[in-house]
């Protein structure tokens, strides 16, 4: 890293001893970004903003929340009713979890569409999958804290899954619970971990971004930057562009917080947890619905594996398969722009995930179990069979020779004209 010389004596003094100013200059001010990035590249920055907002609101909530089964529900209502702007803090946090998942799911599908998981970004991608797993654990435990009916029964159903593990299942579940049922010990450990994990996420995000700064960003054409004519410095170009996305995103978030704060939640969770009354229909939060569908997809024993265990295995496999995705996709071409066949299957996969979510939201009755089974089958077919084969048989379209050539061609402007293109999909 090149050291800068600074005019300000204090800055120079610090930078000579700890070059944070040089570092920022190098990794932010001058960091080269492909100039053809479109708005789908906003979502990593948006995820970072949500993560920070969740931590800040979470810390304030923790000042007023009481992690005890007899007080948790009332302490949340105390926040809603008595704490100054408590309603605002809680609604930002509750809806923030949904926003986090929307943003990260878009971020992931962006990666799938433009092949961002391929060499040399495999590790960057895998770190991303770790973040996803940590987010899921954090969100799941956070939802238990208000100690409503869905909190309690959701926790019970999901922790009970581990009882499907042969031999040690029951002991594992008791170990998770810290007792013989979901109770105060469970609530306390979930609270402790819900406070801890976001900071672990911060650490992993730092690794994620460190890895990103080694390879640089992928781009909609999926070709490498070849020189300065292909890039612009992060600041001010992406500071400006990410800010636009942030403004729009905050508008959407605010619309939920102020005008539909309970829309994404479940009314049942405004009833205090009661171990003696099972709600008629236990459903997880929307962002877990596709996984919930996969969990319930198998209704028959497969060979010697019980149906329940099979469901659990598939649910975990549906995320773990993302870890080996870089090696399952055999195509050398990254971006869907130049993959005429895979492009369609990308959309089929997206629709498959939405359908699985729809199945997850409904009781497993009528046609839903069958749709769930087909959707689950397709999900694994896509990754395990389709991708390896497709890379071998598909003839990609010719790639542009460079990013700058692609930009000029797409904007339709002759080289040298001043066309204000941020690039678009």
């Amino acid at each position: 890293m090149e050291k800068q010389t600074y005019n300000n004596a204090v800055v120079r003094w610090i930078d000579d001893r700890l070059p944070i100013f040089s570092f920022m200059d190098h990794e932010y001010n001058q960091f080269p970004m492909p100039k053809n990035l479109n708005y789908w590249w906003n979502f990593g920055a948006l995820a970072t903003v949500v993560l920070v907002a969740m931590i800040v609101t979470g810390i304030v909530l923790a000042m007023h929340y009481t992690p005890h089964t007899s007080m948790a529900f009332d302490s949340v209502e105390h926040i809603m009713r008595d704490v100054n702007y408590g309603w605002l803090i809680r609604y930002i946090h509750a809806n923030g979890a949904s926003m986090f998942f929307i943003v990260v799911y878009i971020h992931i599908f962006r990666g799938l569409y433009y092949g961002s998981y391929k060499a040399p970004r495999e590790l960057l991608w895998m770190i991303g999958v770790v973040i996803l797993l940590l987010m899921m654990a954090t969100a799941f435990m956070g939802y238990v804290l208000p100690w409503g009916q869905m909190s309690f029964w959701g926790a019970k159903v999901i922790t009970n899954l581990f009882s499907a593990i042969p031999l040690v299942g029951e002991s594992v579940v008791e170990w998770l619970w810290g007792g013989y049922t979901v109770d105060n010990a469970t609530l306390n450990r979930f609270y402790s971990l819900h406070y801890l994990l976001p900071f672990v996420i911060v650490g992993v995000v730092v690794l994620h971004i460190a890895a990103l700064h080694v390879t640089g960003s992928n781009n909609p054409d999926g070709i490498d930057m070849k020189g300065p004519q292909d890039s612009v410095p992060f600041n001010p170009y992406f500071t400006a562009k990410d800010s636009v996305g942030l403004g729009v995103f905050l508008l959407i978030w605010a619309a939920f917080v102020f005008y539909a704060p309970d829309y994404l939640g479940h009314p049942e969770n405004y009833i205090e947890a009661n171990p003696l009354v099972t709600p008629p229909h236990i459903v997880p939060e929307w962002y877990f619905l596709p996984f919930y569908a996969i969990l319930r997809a198998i209704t028959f024993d497969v060979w010697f594996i019980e149906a329940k265990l099979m469901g659990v295995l598939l649910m975990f496999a549906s995320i773990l398969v993302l870890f080996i995705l870089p090696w399952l996709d055999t195509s050398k071409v990254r971006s869907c722009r130049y993959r005429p066949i895979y492009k369609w299957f990308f959309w089929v996969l997206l629709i498959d995930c939405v359908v699985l979510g729809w199945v997850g939201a409904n009781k497993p009755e009528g046609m839903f179990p069958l749709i769930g089974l087909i959707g689950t089958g397709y999900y694994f077919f896509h990754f395990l069979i389709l991708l390896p084969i497709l890379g071998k048989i598909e003839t990609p379209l010719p790639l542009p020779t460079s990013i700058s050539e692609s930009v000029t061609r797409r904007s339709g402007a002759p080289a040298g004209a001043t066309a204000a293109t941020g690039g678009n999909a």
Partner: protein
Amino acid sequence: MKKALILGLVACSLMAAPVQAAEDAEAPKSVDWSFDGIFGHYDRASLQRGMQVYKEVCAACHGMRLLAYRNLMDLGYSEAQVKAFASQYEVQNEDPNDEGEMFNRPALPSDRFVSPFPNEQAARASNGGALPPDLSLIVKARAGGADYIYSVLSGYAEAPKDLKKPDTLHYNPYFPGQLIAMPPPLTEGAVEYADGTKATVDQLSYDVTNFLTWASSPKLEAQKSTGFKVVLFLLVFTGLLIAVKKKVWSAVH
């Protein structure tokens, strides 16, 4: 491609919509509430009437343990009125007296609403085994919200002839399962409104539902008016950011 992705997201969010009340119940009536919409606010006169309905009718069976008497000042009552109101109820003092004995005293504005029954067993014993739920959060705790509560209260009907039902249950097409243990709580003229409003069943249901909605979401007005300012600010701010972005990128090609 963008359009398709947005459609996908919309589909996602629709799926996540709260599952409506049980399939076998009638869809709730749709009411125009003053608290709906971007500028939503509570109708203070209706809240006060609704409070009267709760106090004179519902409080015989239902508690509202999350409300404190002081919260009633939100409805437009003075401190003195709230003090007088609270003092009609009796609560046990938190600390014993000098002889070490617990004693009762009149409730203060800082006390929470006194519930009609000391515990669940007592509540069930007085209601033929059914439990009248606490109403502090009832509007948020039911799919369909205020419309649903209003519909249940005003929607009791003659049971269909062929329906066999125990005498302790009452026919109400809006309640999941259609048989509810609560006897029709409201009848024409059940309370005498001080402001002369005619106490029809619809009016009573409307007023008490307004009151219950306020009890569930006491900060709704602050929420909506803050929201309006925040959204307005973000719109202007995002507009500026778009202009800045255009300017910054104008030289890139």
